[in-house]
């Protein structure tokens, strides 16, 4: 049974009534007023893409609370990182980075209940092209001109991404550029440009896929993606032999409140390298780009409310300071992997392995 709920505009919403007389939200599609531009002789499809209807009953049965991904790591334990440089022969420098998938993925593979993977882990490839001459139209520059592009593959996230970079991708590119600009010695490469292109093959989720968007929601997964981008780009730049002050590594820390884990206290806790799919609600998160040799931060991105963090009793830091310190600790961890990957690729080239 269908009811049409027509608004003042020619905008129809279709609702379906199931047997138990409860309204189940099916899907909404807007039939826009046919403009003069559109083809009047044919029946036009909807202007955007459509998604198949998801029935609430399916969602209930397929995703019981036990299927929810849980963090198996200690609060200060990082995920393993796979990082390798020089995989793309046509680029002057390249790297590939992968985060260890959550334990829930292995469990779901061993005992499959659903075709939907419970969590996703970051996978990305970074290429560095250059130093190359600036375009003819560009003005004279005594420094290296850095250009960063971050692009999600269409299949990288649960929601498909378009081929044109959207605002979040451009945002990531700007953050990455600030992070790298502080590390590169730009004056050693006059009149030349450096293009850094990152393709994200698999992105982190912003929340557990089964839970509905709520008030705590923000693009938490993006912060993990940025940290991965910084680490991978740093490895690719080192692979291209561009002068840097230090290998700059990215790290994420977050203040999370999990009712299940903090049953006794229930208070928000600081955790390093958070996978948003493993937490019920993230209150605040921070990503830094950090250079350990100089103890400098080149990029800092803090989001959310960090005031509610419950720290140790003898810890007189504010939640915000603790969050930044946690992100720096995570970056230090990523730096050890980064340094090892760069050293390994160097020794491979020199031929000592």
């Amino acid at each position, binding site marked *: 049974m269908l009811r049409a709920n027509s608004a003042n505009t020619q905008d129809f919403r279709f609702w379906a009534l199931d047997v138990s007389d409860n309204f189940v939200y099916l899907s909404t599609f807007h039939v826009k007023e046919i403009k003069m531009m559109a083809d009047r002789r044919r029946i036009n499809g909807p202007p955007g893409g459509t998604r198949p209807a998801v029935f609430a009953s399916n969602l209930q049965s397929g995703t019981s609370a036990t299927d929810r991904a849980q963090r198996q790591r200690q609060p200060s334990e990082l995920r393993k990182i796979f990082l390798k440089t020089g995989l793309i022969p*046509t*680029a*002057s420098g390249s790297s590939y980075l992968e985060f260890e998938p959550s334990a829930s993925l292995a469990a779901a593979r061993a005992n499959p209940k659903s075709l939907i993977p419970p969590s996703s882990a970051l996978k990305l490839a970074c290429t560095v*092209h*250059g*130093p*190359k*001459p*600036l375009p*003819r139209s*560009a*003005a*004279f*520059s005594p420094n290296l001109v850095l250009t960063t592009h971050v692009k999600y593959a269409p299949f990288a996230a649960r929601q498909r991404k378009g081929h044109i970079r959207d605002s979040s991708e451009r945002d990531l590119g700007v953050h990455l550029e600030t992070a790298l600009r502080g590390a590169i*010695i730009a004056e050693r*490469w*006059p*009149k*030349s440009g450096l293009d850094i292109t990152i393709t994200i093959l698999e992105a982190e989720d912003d929340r557990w896929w089964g839970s509905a968007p709520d008030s705590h929601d923000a693009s938490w997964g993006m912060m993990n993606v940025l940290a991965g981008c910084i680490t991978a780009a740093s490895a690719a730049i*080192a*692979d*291209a*032999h*561009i*002068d*840097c*002050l*230090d*290998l700059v590594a990215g790290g994420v820390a977050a203040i999370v409140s999990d009712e299940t884990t903090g049953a006794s206290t229930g208070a928000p806790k600081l955790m390093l390298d958070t996978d948003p799919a493993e937490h019920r609600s993230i209150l605040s998160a921070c990503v830094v780009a950090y*250079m*350990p*040799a*100089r103890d400098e931060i080149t990029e800092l991105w803090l989001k959310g409310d960090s005031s509610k963090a419950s720290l140790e009793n003898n810890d007189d830091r504010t939640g915000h300071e603790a969050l930044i310190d946690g992100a720096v600790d995570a970056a230090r961890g990523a730096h050890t992997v980064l*340094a090892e990957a*760069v*050293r390994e*690729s*160097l*020794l491979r*080239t*020199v*031929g*000592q392995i």
Partner: protein
Amino acid sequence: MATSLPAVAIPGQRLGSITAYSAGPGTHVQQSNIYASIAGPVIVDPAQPKTQTKSTLRVSRILQGTSQAAPAAPTKQKHRYNTLPAVDSIVLARVTRVQKRQATVSILVVLDETSSTTTDPSKLASDNDNVASILTTAANPENHSNTDELRFQALIRKEDVRAVEKDRVVMDEMFRVGDIVRGSVLSLGDQSFYYLTTARNDLGVVMARSEAGNMMFPVSWKEMRDPVTGAGEQRKVARPY
């Protein structure tokens, strides 16, 4: 000064104190310490007794294979590195346009100092050693730039072609489109062009094809000859080694 130097360095690695060494290419100084800024083997250049008091510490861009055990079978390893043209560096460039007052060239490869001073070409370890292949194939694969747009552009002005009789230079008799020229960088130039000079005996056209399309050989400082037709053509010829 008991701290020994590492064999290879990665960016951000502390190499030594500024009191013991002076900082060379591939390093930077931070709080009176020398740090590596690229990944590569650490090389100590001994002090020149007259001019310097400290030996220079540098991180090499040239990754030389250490397979010394089997010199009979030189491994064809790709030694990638990036080099920008700097003032006084010797470059090989292809002529793309000849005008009345200047010739436009695109820089194919920057010859590094070590390879230009080494006489035995078989001992060159850089990727520039295979100059013949660079010149026969249009693209230098190490440059990753296959079109002129992606290469650094340079100008050879009429007065920079040769050192004598500068005012009688006719550009058409010096270069033709497609010639390979060895030149020295005069300046970084403006936003789009470097400036090159060929005003030295060892600089000028090193490879050229005749009108008939055959590779020519040099016969004098201003003439090259086609071995098939025997016809001579005028060029500003570099002195062959």
